[in-house]
């Protein structure tokens, strides 16, 4: 009995080995199975297709579980397609998720907008961010996401000054928002303010400690922030080695074994 998550891992490992086609094949096979199971459940049978009685509660729980798993698979497929720069196919996959669950609409539309910005299709990105705003329906929980979206649009048109304003707005709402602190320093760099850029990133990095609940959530952005900070140290002066070593000490103290220290480029 192999756990579902392990099957997904098995598929995703192919990506890390640079075999995206294999990853996609495995993911689509899992998706196929998941769809069959859902079809069986919805037509009154058990998961494997046999005719047996399932209590309505059990059936409900099973359908929810498999719907969630199907959604996870679609996310994985979309991410693999994005990494191989198949933008059109990736976005069509994400659209399938949007059809299934409305709850993720703001998050997904914002994400797709960012992917389109990465591609260079600014107009379509704008379109997607507008859809995200519509889906948010004035809910204050989404306010932060919408401001981040606005900031990204400004980045797309190289309007560093306005992007900086937007990231500062995010920081007013959440002064510990790691991505906003990082992106703020990127804007400062392009506005010819190297020292301010470094100080913003140092704030971001030094406020991390392993007690914070968000540490795991922040792991990837932290790697990004560290990589940027190291790049800025190298730009600032030729004596960057001591600063990098100080960083390494700090990170070693707060991170677990899984942290990738190659981002420090030592």
């Amino acid at each position, binding site marked *: 009995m192999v756990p579902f998550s392990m099957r997904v891992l098995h598929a995703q490992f192919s990506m890390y080995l640079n075999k995206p086609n294999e990853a996609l094949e495995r993911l689509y096979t899992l998706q196929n199975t998941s769809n069959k199971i859902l079809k069986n459940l919805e037509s009154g049978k058990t998961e494997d297709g046999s005719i047996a009685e399932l209590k309505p509660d059990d059936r409900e729980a099973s359908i929810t579980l498999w719907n969630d798993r199907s959604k996870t698979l679609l996310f994985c497929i979309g991410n693999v397609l*994005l990494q191989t*720069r198949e933008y*059109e196919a990736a976005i069509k996959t994400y659209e399938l998720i949007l059809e299934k669950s409305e709850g993720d609409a703001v998050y997904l539309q914002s994400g797709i907008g*960012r992917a389109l910005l990465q*591609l260079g299709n600014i107009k379509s990105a704008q379109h997607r961010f507008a859809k995200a705003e519509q889906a948010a329906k004035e809910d204050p929980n989404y306010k932060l996401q919408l401001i981040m979206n606005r900031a990204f649009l400004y980045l797309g048109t190289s309007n560093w000054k306005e992007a900086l304003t937007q990231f500062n707005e995010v920081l007013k709402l959440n002064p510990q928002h790691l991505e906003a602190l990082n992106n703020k320093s990127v804007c400062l760099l392009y506005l010819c303010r190297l020292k301010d850029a470094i100080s913003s990133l140092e704030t971001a990095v030094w406020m991390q400690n392993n007690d914070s609940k968000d540490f795991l959530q922040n792991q*990837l*952005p932290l790697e990004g922030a560290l990589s*940027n900070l190291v*790049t800025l140290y190298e730009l600032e002066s*030729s004596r960057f080695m001591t600063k990098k070593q100080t960083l390494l000490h700090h990170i070693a103290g707060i991170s677990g074994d899984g942290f990738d220290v190659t981002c420090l480029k030592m």
Partner: protein
Amino acid sequence: MDNSKEHPLILRVMRLTKPSIITSSPLHNEASDTLPSIMGHSSTQLPAYGTGETLILPHSFGNIFLGETFVSYLSVNNESGSDVTSVSLTADLQTGSQRITLSNKSLNESLKPETSLDAVINHEVKELGNHILVCIVKYNRPNGETRSFRKFFKFQVLKPLDVKTKFYNIECDQVYLETQIQNITPSPICMEKVSLDPSTMYTVQSLDISTHGEFNSQSYTKPSEVRQYLYWLKLKPAHLKKAFTEAASIIGKLDIVWKSSLGERGRLQTSQLQRAIMTPRDLLVQVNKVPERLKVLEPFEVLCKLTNYSDRSKQLMVKYENQSNLLWQGSSGFALDKLNPKESCFITMHLLPTSVGIQSISGMKVVDTELNRTYEFDDIHQVLVA
């Protein structure tokens, strides 16, 4: 390179391409997989979407293409323990053909230790090949002596697009231009605008069927993919007289704007495109009006325009000869009034289609009675007979 030991100041340079957004393949776990109380940390709310919100600064110089904007950060840092006075930084770009000054900054007060003089330079790259960024730093030693040092950074500007053009001359005053644009950069690009700026003698109509929606066929071009565009150019009526001359050969230039990662913009204009001039002809027959629906064995009328492009006035006679499945009706030959140079007259032709399908109007002969020369006009128009 000469620095720290000899000079108190250090020059650091970094190219500022647009940052990229961090991407990942997030791993998935379910609540039933983890034992939070025993195993320590686990997260059930990991983000599932691959493109995050963290910007990553460029790690290397990368590629630079013709039409893009070269942006770079320059920083002069004081790494000595004491103040340095009269610091100035000049940045020039040396290309194959010219030297442009991109930045010239100086400080009035002295530069304190561990502080720097920074500049960001911007330049739209308009030439291919080798470019050299020359940075000159000048300062004064405590004894008043002016010292300087320079640093050179060489980079190659590559060609981003391969543009091929093909002309289809259909009449002396109309031409179709087909252009194929190939993306020869290593990343996908979005063609934001591809347009033909016509020369003063022509009007242009783009024949692209653009579909609405996010991913229409024009949206993005992967590396080595080719996009094709079609334009219909017509000589303006005022310039019709110059149809066979040199002046009509220049039709305009292509203006291409594209965007790549995070909106990095590039722009290229081709040189003036030229079509082949058609061999000059004395007379030209053009069809002006043809009825749309034609039925077999039902006669129809065609209005056509006969233009005299030569320099002498002509006394002409029109003769018809049945050559195809469209039969001429009416008189088979008649004389026209005297036709002056660069002028035209209108002739109404009567035809009878005898079979179904695409038929060609052929068999019109125009005779110059003075020179005794016959001009034959075949296939002047095709019609569909139902």
